[in-house]
């Protein structure tokens, strides 16, 4: 539904830009100047969204070869019913939801804490720590995932080796440990990035505020909790929304971890499951799964925005 709105919005604005050349001398360049972006934007952003919704409503007729339109038959919402009836797909949605519910708050608290510590006046070597925490983000995500997959791989893992020295058996790729392992990969990769966004917001707070609070006898912790945290709320909201969207698109980490943990199913996360459906040439199922995931990501991120907005109004 938002797709249609968005598409219409882009279409209408383009049309008005082009339709009124004479009203102002500058009416013309607007359409010309926006076209180089808006045309590929419509083709590569809006069209795929529309195309997915369209594809999700059809299914392939078995007698055809499957490359042209006539072999498709309208299927209504049956692809959705199939996807939601699929225990594997439902499991992948639930898994991502659970990972997100645990990992996102933990990571953001971690990032907020680090940002507050880096912002404290007495902290030493700020530049070094800032770079150290940010380094994981500067590594390509795939490299980070490969690295961690070896760090947890049975037979190769230095972590398991250390546990063995202590007489413990630790397999970080066992079924029970897969979710914590992936959560750790995400936390490792993104804490520094989120920390930097929060830290930038902290630095924008005028120093007088903290000084005044100190004079009133407020402790450093009190200043952090009562003054700084409320003031960096926009940054916290932004990082939360980005993290929710990031969790919804979880693919690289499980796909790469699968190389060292064959027990990890190819329907571990929704995107992984959709990609699996593409590999099985079941495009319509992939489309329906993509739409379900997009709706879920949309509901969660905008639901969160609405939630904090209402809270903000009450304050």
């Amino acid at each position, binding site marked *: 539904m938002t797709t249609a709105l968005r598409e219409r919005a882009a279409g209408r604005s383009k049309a008005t830009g082009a339709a009124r050349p004479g009203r102002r001398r500058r009416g013309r360049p607007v359409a010309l100047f926006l076209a180089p972006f808006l045309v590929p934007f419509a083709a590569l952003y809006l069209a795929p969204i529309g195309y997915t919704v369209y594809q999700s409503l059809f299914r392939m007729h078995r007698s055809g070869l499957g490359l042209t339109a006539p072999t498709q038959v309208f299927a209504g919402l049956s692809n959705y019913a199939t996807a939601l009836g699929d225990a594997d797909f439902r499991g992948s949605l639930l898994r991502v939801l659970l990972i997100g519910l645990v990992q996102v708050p933990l990571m953001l608290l971690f990032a907020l804490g680090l940002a507050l510590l880096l912002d404290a006046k007495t902290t030493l070597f700020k530049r070094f720590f800032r770079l150290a925490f940010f*380094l994981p983000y500067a590594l390509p995500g795939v490299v980070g995932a*490969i690295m961690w997959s070896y760090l947890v791989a049975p037979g190769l893992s230095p972590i398991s080796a250390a546990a063995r020295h202590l007489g413990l058996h630790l397999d970080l790729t066992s079924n029970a440990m897969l979710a914590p392992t992936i959560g750790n990969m995400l936390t490792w990769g993104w804490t520094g990035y989120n920390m930097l966004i929060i830290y930038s917001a902290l630095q924008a707070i005028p120093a007088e505020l903290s000084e005044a609070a100190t004079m009133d006898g407020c402790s450093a912790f009190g200043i952090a909790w009562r003054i700084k945290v409320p003031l960096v709320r926009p940054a916290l909201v932004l990082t939360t929304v980005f993290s929710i969207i990031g969790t919804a698109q979880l693919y690289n980490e499980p796909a790469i971890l699968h190389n060292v943990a064959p027990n990890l199913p190819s329907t571990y996360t929704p995107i992984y499951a959709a990609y699996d459906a593409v590999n099985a040439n079941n495009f319509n199922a992939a489309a329906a799964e993509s739409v379900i995931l997009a709706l879920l990501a949309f509901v969660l991120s905008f639901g969160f925005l609405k939630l904090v907005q209402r809270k903000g109004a009450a304050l």
Partner: protein
Amino acid sequence: MTIRQSLSRWLILGVLLITSVYFLAPVWWLLVSSTKTNADLFSGNGFWFARFALFDNVHQVFAQQGGIYWQWLANSALYAVGGATVSTLIAALAGYTLAKYRFRGRELTFNSILAAVLVPQPLLAVPLYLMFSQIHLVNTYWAVLLPSMVSPFGVYLARIYAGSSVPDEIIEAGRIDGAGEFRIFATIALRVMSPALVTIFLFQFVAIWTNYLLPVLMLANDHLQPVTVGIVGWQAQRGIGPSAVPFNIVITAAAISAIPLVVLFLSLQRFWRSGLTAGSTK
């Protein structure tokens, strides 16, 4: 008072040091492991050196599969430089137009671009694959290049920057001097916006270089793949079988492929920090 202050100073330092071990140790492991032979990877302390085989490993990485690693690096560079250059230029033009011209539908256009920033990229990859396979673009350079040329976040940054840094007076002065609208943009506005251009280019470059799902869907041909897809392909062989790629080569290849981005981040700190701040203050 001073005792308490110095106590908290050491406490904070301790916490930050332990935290930096968490973030740095895996990278240290990667660096140390890239100097080891395949056999040494499975024995001894993972975080300390064994026989020094770095040069041999690097040599093997570039010799593996007929030297295809060079091709992968070149492909990544082509996708990242080509995609980021085009996306930066058209985003700058669009952002400048949205900031400096008044026209009906301006806010609507901007809001729909802003909403697109929130669309998870992997969700677009599957439908794009379906569309591209119908027009036979799959398994060509264009399959990865074209989607890399659109950056809604770039338009957002360009609009903010153009709005605050390109004065209307300069544009008016250009018009009085008889310059065309595009000439004003190309010769005056682009120059004023150059810090924003570097930021947009950098973010888009990183996004393309690190992208995995899109190229892995689009490209079945080894020789078109970027380095990310290539290395994961090597890793997927799990070191099993006679033609499999040994672990030491995968690890060294991964370490090498990280170098361009780390260098880019270290040398252009000013720009990526300003890009992040633009996101946090809005």
